[in-house]
């Protein structure tokens, strides 16, 4: 993906939801996209598959999938990619399935949309998939309706559906946000296990640094539609470089911390209607400088990039004072 920009024409002016996002996803790689609500992470992934249906939307940039430019393809051309080469998992499993059809019917529908198999074959494949995602007694459950499943089980059904055509890439949009904590862990384990089996690449969108730490190989931290930091998971989580990432990591509550107060990032996310010309995070940043009026470009080495004007020396200094006061530990 190169320089993806998504904007919406609104009455209050141009709303820039995604502003210059670039990244690559390698085969079998798990890329995490992390950011607050409204940072443009979901919109970016929806727009590349033509799932943003707003007539006021403007999308530019370049997205190549397996060497083929897919941005700007017609609906008909995208239909083969959606659900076939690219599977999607959504945030809310309670509403993601059509309520009036059995789950087996819905999985079979997708299989039959992408391959020429009989209803019988599609259904037995659906049963197989349901078993694979850990639904007990799949031969019976295949004939049940979505409302007869719990939230976690429904998310398993959605995952089974997304995997039904052996996609090369799986996009998971906050797959665990709507689930309770124990179910979250099960779903993440399941996704890891299935990734081993199916050898798909995964883009996982989340606001939860814990999910990133468990799943991702590489991370994109987004703020106000722009990438703030990109790098290997271990680098970003252990040695974060951008002040926004420091804030995000600090906001994960820790059981072993003596700090009773939850750490927050001061202020609220900027409105995408008027993102500052300079660094988008500057208004909330403790380490704001004069130069932050100018937009920082992603820079760095060894695949660990960030968009911040702080130089290495300043960062080392800030990090050492911060960790001694225990604020961002």
């Amino acid at each position, binding site marked *: 993906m190169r320089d993806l920009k998504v904007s919406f024409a609104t009455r209050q002016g141009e709303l820039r939801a995604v502003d210059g996002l670039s990244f690559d996803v390698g085969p079998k790689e798990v890329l995490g996209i992390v950011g607050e609500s409204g940072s443009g992470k979901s919109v970016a992934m929806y727009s590349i598959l033509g799932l943003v249906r707003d007539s006021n939307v403007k999308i530019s940039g370049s997205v190549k999938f397996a060497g083929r430019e897919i941005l700007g393809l017609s609906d008909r051309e995208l239909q083969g990619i959606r*659900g076939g080469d690219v599977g999607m998992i959504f945030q809310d499993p309670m509403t993601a399935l*059509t*309520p009036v059809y059995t789950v087996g019917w819905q999985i079979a529908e997708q299989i039959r949309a992408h391959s020429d198999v009989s209803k019988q074959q599609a259904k037995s494949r659906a049963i197989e998939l349901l078993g694979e995602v850990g639904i007990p007694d799949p031969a019976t459950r295949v004939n049940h*309706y979505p409302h007869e499943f719990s939230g976690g089980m429904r998310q398993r059904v959605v995952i089974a559906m997304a995997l039904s055509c052996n996609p090369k890439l799986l996009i998971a949009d906050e797959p665990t946000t709507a689930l309770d904590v124990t179910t979250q862990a099960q779903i993440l384990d399941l996704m890891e296990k299935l990734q081993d089996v199916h050898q798909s690449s995964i883009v996982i969108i989340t606001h939860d640094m814990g999910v990133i730490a468990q799943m991702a190989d590489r991370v994109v931290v987004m703020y106000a539609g722009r990438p703030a930091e990109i790098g290997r998971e271990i680098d970003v989580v252990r040695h974060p470089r951008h002040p926004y990432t420091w804030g995000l990591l600090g906001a994960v509550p820790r059981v072993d911390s003596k700090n009773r107060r939850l750490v927050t990032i001061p202020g609220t996310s900027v409105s995408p209607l008027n993102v500052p010309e300079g660094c988008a995070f500057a208004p909330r940043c403790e380490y704001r400088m004069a130069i932050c009026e100018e937009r920082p470009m992603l820079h760095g080495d060894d695949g660990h990039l960030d968009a911040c004007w702080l130089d290495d020396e300043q960062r080392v200094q800030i990090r050492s004072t911060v960790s001694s006061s225990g604020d961002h530990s």
Partner: protein
Amino acid sequence: MPAFIARRLLSAVLVLFSISVMVFLIFFATPGVDPAARIAGRSASPQVLAQVQAAFGLNRPLPIRYLLMMEHLFIKHDLTSYVNIGSKVVPQILQAAPVTLSLVIGAAVIWVIVGVLGGVIAAANRGKFIDPLIMFVGIAAVSVPAYWLGEVVNFFTQSKFHSSLFSWVPGSGYVPLTQNPLEWALHLIFPWLTLAALYAGIYARVLRAELVNALNEDYVRTARAKGLSERRILIRHALRCSLISVVSLFGLDFGALIGGAALLTEVVMGLPGIGMLTYNSLQSLDLPVIMGCVMYAAFFVVLANAVVDILYAVLDPRVRIA
């Protein structure tokens, strides 16, 4: 499912029973009103009053009177009007019912087809010219009163262009289907269109709104992410879920129309249906006929509701458990 249907039909029978009791009480047990005088009509002679007293058992206890009444209505079919001396109520209703059924069923077929097509086409073309056009025609059809539309249609088909364009249109009235199917249809085609216009407009608008809502649902996004065609998403997913509310609307409208709510169309088009019968009996305060018509109407409203509930369960699996 069979258990659900059985339960639903049983409750329909219970509702019908309680309606019959209520209707009976209103007509025969309203305090301060002499039912005999009301049944016999204005300025009835003492002999007639005595006759009424005997026929309806008005000096006997209330439950007996109820049973006698039901016997007249449903078993002996000999409930008699005292306004139009000698005319029996039940045969009148049985004669009027096919007219209304023909009118309403035919119109319903037209309005469901036109309404669903209109709603789907409008929703599929949101933001284009055709969507507001269909919605405008819809609101126009809803706004035009049936009696006015009927008169205009009559004016054009029966007098203005009757000698040229509409020479094939027969005069107003009704020909039974069993007697001559072609004449039956020819007599009914314009009444059908007149009655269907209002409902087609309502259904197109309701369905469009439902579809637009459904198209914003998460499951539509899922369907798109599955790589389905837009047509399949619209028909198999969005329309299928939107039909649920249209079906419940249809049941209410259909039941009420069969029960006599097609009155305006029947009167304007000169069709001797249930609406017309009710209208005439109300004008002459023909109590036995009014009561018969009310019972008949209640029967169809309750039946239509039961059928709708069963259809509901067919369409929406979530209802079946309840």
